[in-house]
């Protein structure tokens, strides 16, 4: 561990304690403010008060003040939540920006008192043994040879486990785009960023993962880290900082890189007219958690596609259903939430849902099933509809 990396971490319960007396359960968190559309995937799925943000806050207060004791029956209401953050957008109480902090705090304490959910413990063990939650053979560095990447570079592409081991077409498309745009980048020996553990209250192993990734990024000499995973983006740029990591690099989501490459002319958009209608799904970790709504849309606006917005978009976007450990532990809720999002997309008449997060892409595709709508990642679309800068020899 570097001396500069002070492993600061708030004590479990600190967020709950700070906001112990702030929620009257007015219910504003349940619905899209002034539009009166459902906002909370968990609450919509289960219906009981315990599955809305206000119920969880009251539960946290009850546990913090010892009004109730820990038992297994508490776990579902604590963990069956995608932590999408839609409640924070709707809430008008003083704790409005801290509801996810409170829920994740509650999860940490739950893990300490009752233990992690079996599904979550399983992927934690995989992360510890295989450095990814999928029990896949660890191979990040092999991509350097495969794609003939340099040992050191200005940029690191942090691939992320889902792209690397499940949605590999997103990884390949991202690499393809960066290469054809002439970006100086490499791939490091990355471990899981720790997002699945942080989101499920299993924080203990995260410092080790963070330190490994920090060392790997430092050794690359990079000034910028690019990732196409919204979850990784949030963890690298927000959680690592909150955990006390001091790393002199800038973290950006790949959509920002795509936008800048197109603007600079390093990527040229295929100019042929297209009758492709797409709709954009805001990933929670990119949108509500990090405030990035317009950059992916700016990319899409440069491509020969028509973008039709879903009724619920930007900070009111309906969650894909996968986050916060929901996909592994509460598959039924994850799929029903995803189906609702797919339905919203189909109502636009779009042929494709474009997301900017491999985990969203995965769950939306699972939810879409045989529905007549494709689910792809922004990187795939950019790769398909752009070419690199013309070689000088071909210039007029």
């Amino acid at each position, binding site marked *: 561990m570097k001396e500069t990396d002070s492993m600061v971490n708030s004590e479990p319960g600190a967020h709950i304690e700070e906001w112990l007396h702030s929620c009257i359960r007015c*219910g504003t968190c349940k619905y899209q403010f002034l539009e*009166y559309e459902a906002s909370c995937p968990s609450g919509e799925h289960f219906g009981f*008060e*315990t599955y809305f943000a206000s119920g969880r806050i009251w539960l946290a207060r009850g546990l913090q003040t010892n009004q109730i004791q820990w038992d297994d029956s508490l776990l579902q209401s604590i963990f069956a939540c995608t932590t999408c953050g839609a409640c924070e957008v709707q809430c008008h109480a003083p704790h409005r920006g801290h509801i996810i902090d409170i829920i994740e705090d509650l999860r940490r304490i739950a893990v300490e008192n009752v233990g992690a959910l079996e599904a979550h413990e399983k992927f934690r063990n995989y992360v510890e043994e295989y450095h990814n939650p999928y029990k896949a053979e660890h191979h990040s560095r092999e991509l350097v040879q495969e794609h003939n990447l340099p040992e050191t570079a200005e940029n690191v592409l942090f691939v992320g486990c889902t792209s690397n081991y499940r949605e590999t077409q997103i990884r390949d498309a991202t690499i393809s785009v960066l290469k054809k745009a002439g970006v100086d980048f490499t791939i490091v020996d990355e471990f899981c960023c720790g997002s699945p553990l942080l989101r499920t209250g299993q924080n203990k192993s995260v410092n080790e993962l963070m330190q490994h990734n920090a060392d790997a990024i430092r050794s690359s000499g990079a000034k910028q880290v690019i990732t196409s995973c919204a979850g990784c983006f949030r963890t690298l740029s927000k959680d690592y900082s909150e955990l006390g990591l001091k790393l002199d690099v800038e973290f950006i989501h790949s959509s920002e890189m795509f936008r800048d490459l197109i603007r600079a002319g390093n990527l040229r958009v295929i100019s042929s007219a297209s009758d492709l209608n797409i709709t954009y799904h805001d990933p929670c970790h990119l949108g509500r958690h990090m405030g990035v709504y317009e950059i992916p849309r700016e990319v899409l606006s440069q491509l020969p596609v028509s973008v039709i917005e879903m009724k619920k978009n930007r900070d009111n976007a309906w969650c894909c259903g996968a986050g916060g450990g929901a996909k592994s532990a509460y598959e039924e809720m994850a799929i029903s939430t995803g189906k609702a999002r797919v339905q919203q997309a189909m109502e636009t008449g779009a042929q494709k849902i474009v997301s900017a997060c491999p985990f969203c892409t995965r769950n939306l595709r699972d939810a879409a099933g045989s529905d007549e709508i494709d689910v792809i990642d922004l990187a795939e679309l950019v790769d398909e509809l752009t070419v690199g800068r013309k070689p000088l020899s071909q210039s007029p």
Partner: protein
Amino acid sequence: MEIKQRLMKIVGPERVADGAAEKHVYSYDMTENPSLPPSLVVMPQTLEEVQQIVQAANTTKTPLIPFVTGQSVGGLTIPAVEGAVIVDLKRMNRIIEVDEEAMYVLVEPGVTFGHLKKYLDDHHPTLRYTYPLAPPYTSVLANALLEGLCDLSTRHGAMADFINGLEAVLPTGEVVRVGTGASGEGNWFSRYPLPDLVGLFAGWQGMTGIVTKMALQLWPKMPFNRHVGLLCFGEEPTIRMLTRIARTQVLDDSVCVSTPLVKMVSGVAAPVELYDGEPDYGMLLTVSGNTETEVSEKINVIRRIVNEERETDSRHVLISWEGLMKLMGDQWGPFVDLPSEMYKVLAEHDGLTWVGTYIHPKYWKTVLEEGRAIVEKYGFELIANLKAMKGMHFGEFKFIFRFPKDDDTVKRVRECNAELLDLALSYGAIPYKTPVWAAKKLQERLDPNFVMLMRRVQRALDPNGIMNPGRWGLDERD
């Protein structure tokens, strides 16, 4: 078979919950009233399921407590007895019918003010319902049953007065309809001239059955509306002006609050205090009409009364809506569209409470003066809320407290509320959305034969005593 198994058979296991989380979360409301956990929570979606739940509860003698959207107050959904089952009705949330000609809407319990407003704006833009100073996701049906107030109360009265009829599952399991809707579908135009059996359900706090549908009066959305603010000094002039203006019958609604609440809406951070020289009260007065001239003349009626009062104290100020927005900020805008939006300023802590009462106009000023002294003695923010009701046939009076639910503050709130209730009762005021502790105080002042009649009605309808037992203090089985 135990009640849990019976209920799971009726609604399916996924809509029955008896975990520690549910027992805890459903054992509280936002007020200071003491908690008691239910044995489980059941979530029906249809009338038939509600009926079967009630029938099962009769078999096992299980107490049932209706619950809707969770913004409960007065401890009304907190079990008063052990072993109760909460019947969470939020998934019965259909707007079944809007009758444009007879101007009513037929709703299920889970329909909220926000949803109804949006629905009417989208589909029936010439009609409006009426909205309270409550969170936008409060149940329309529950608020009407509990006789709360709204933004047409100065003209039309408490929300129960808007009920044309209802459908309910009796405590013995039969489904009944009262009002003209009893004569057939699509005919919920009035509760009269039949015997007014709405009264068997309104105000009963769920003791006489589970209401599953309600027909509520809608009103034409008037083409011209105007709001004016009135800042005034002293309890006596404030009440006098409000009373005089309300008696002219020009108002749709009146809200009179103490200045700290005005400052809260304007963005002043808690704790909000009242400083020397500031007006004591602020009123928002609403008028409407078919022509601009009609509205202007109504405003002139108000202005004339204020000008007469200004001859005694020139500090009273009538302010146009535009002036009020400039003075207080744009955040006042949503309030006139949907008063619920102002509720957010009360969402400062995990506790919110009040002793709300309806009172004879002649005691209004006195109870406000003496109530203010009580609140100041306990050191709480001064948040008085007054409304002229039904053309000034009576007044509404309450002091609201937003408070952290730590042990010391809760104790102080209970003491203050008890003192305020004693004061109000001493002037003949009647509390609404009444907690059990307040109902017991009220009973001491009511004609014993009235209490006897309540008890007799309740027992006739609910021989097994399963519906929200203990409410209204009717727990003794003598």
